[in-house]
């Protein structure tokens, strides 16, 4: 991974750099699998190897292909070295990586692992920690995803003019990808739903499910044309859904407060605490999945529309 990172920084051809980023994402995902963090590996594989290089390639198509020669500046090199040294110095105080004495492994991790099944009743501890014990952090993550989508829309809002005479370029004339795509897209969508709702029992959850759902629709757009996708999927609806996911998450949290508990306390959502936890986790993951899928799709639509307008407008 170190070699790949150095190669990304030093290579001049930006297209090669994007491909190397994909390789780096694949290495990260394998690394996560080796460390038994399958949920994270899942999300990294779908986002870091699929969607991010895709958006980067669109960006390259709109800008230039080769890195401009940057002037070596000793001042900035010194500044970065000082900042890096300070960061290293700051980590010296932290417990060693993976040490059994660390407070995280002595207090919080055993408590979550021991109490998760009795308190929440779902087997996948990763999901119970993500969606129930640390739901506040996940709310922050979903809001960040939403904010990123809003940021992209602020830069690239697809206007009415970009859709009129942009044509409908697609890969429809290439037989093999078209047929295989037609066969594969429905199972991929079903798989995304499986990952979404099965996140409690196996690896999965809202984040990878949203990414997989969006990538199936993006494949549809590439095979059959952007305008075709827009007829299938209403742009207004996607914008509303992106916000609706975050809203669902927050509402579930506030509902807990309305019945007397803390914010995001799922125990009060139903008559019995375990059912409440189950319902809360399900709804919260659903909100995450909806927002992630909508934001990914929005970003793709914004980039693709802009590129289309630049080429044909």
């Amino acid at each position, binding site marked *: 991974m170190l070699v790949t990172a150095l190669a990304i920084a030093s290579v001049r051809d930006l297209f090669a750099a994007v491909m190397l980023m994909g390789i780096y994402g694949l290495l990260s995902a394998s690394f996560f699998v080796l460390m038994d963090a399958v949920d994270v590996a899942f999300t990294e594989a779908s986002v870091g190897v699929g969607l991010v290089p895709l958006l980067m390639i669109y960006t390259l198509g709109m800008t230039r292909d080769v890195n401009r020669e940057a002037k070596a500046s000793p001042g900035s090199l010194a500044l970065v070295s000082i900042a890096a040294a300070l960061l290293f110095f700051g980590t010296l105080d932290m417990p060693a990586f993976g040490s059994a004495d660390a407070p995280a492994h002595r207090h919080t991790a055993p408590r979550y692992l021991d109490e998760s099944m009795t308190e929440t009743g779902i087997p996948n501890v990763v999901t119970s920690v993500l969606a129930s014990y640390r739901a506040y952090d996940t709310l922050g993550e979903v809001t960040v995803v939403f904010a990123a989508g809003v940021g992209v829309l602020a830069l690239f809002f697809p206007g009415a003019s970009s859709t009129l005479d942009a044509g409908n370029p697609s890969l429809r004339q*290439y037989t*093999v*990808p078209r047929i*295989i795509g037609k*066969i*594969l897209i429905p199972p991929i969508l079903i798989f995304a739903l499986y990952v979404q709702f099965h996140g409690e029992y196996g690896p999965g959850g809202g984040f990878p499910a949203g990414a997989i759902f969006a990538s199936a629709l993006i494949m549809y757009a590439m095979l059959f044309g952007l305008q075709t996708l827009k007829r299938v999927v209403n742009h207004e609806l996607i914008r509303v859904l992106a916000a609706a996911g975050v809203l669902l998450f927050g509402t579930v949290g506030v509902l807990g407060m309305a019945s007397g508990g803390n914010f995001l306390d799922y125990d009060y959502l139903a008559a019995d605490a375990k059912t409440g936890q189950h319902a809360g986790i399900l709804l919260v993951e659903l909100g995450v999945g909806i927002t992630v899928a909508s934001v990914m799709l929005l970003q793709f639509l914004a980039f693709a529309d802009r590129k289309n307008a630049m080429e044909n407008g």
Partner: protein
Amino acid sequence: MIAAIAGIVSAAALGLGSLLLLSGALGLLRFPDFYTRVHASGITDTLATGLIVAGLMPHAGWSQDLTKLILILVFIVFVSPTAVQVLVKSALHGGLVPVTRKSS
């Protein structure tokens, strides 16, 4: 008896799959040109990965894992050759000229 046969078949499939993966990697390194490399690694990778997944099936037994393995096998058989086809098509579209005996 059946278990012994299944064990032998599984071991043979896994071994053959690993050998094919090795040969595909060798081809990736040694062939002179993009098209020959993609052909070598793409075709052997599909068969090798399929054999490895098939070799894991007897170990899974009749369970939910078997269904997942079958689905993975079907997916790989569909997608891997398509990926090779799309790679080669886009390279041709981009103008990469294959190495021929005249040019080398």
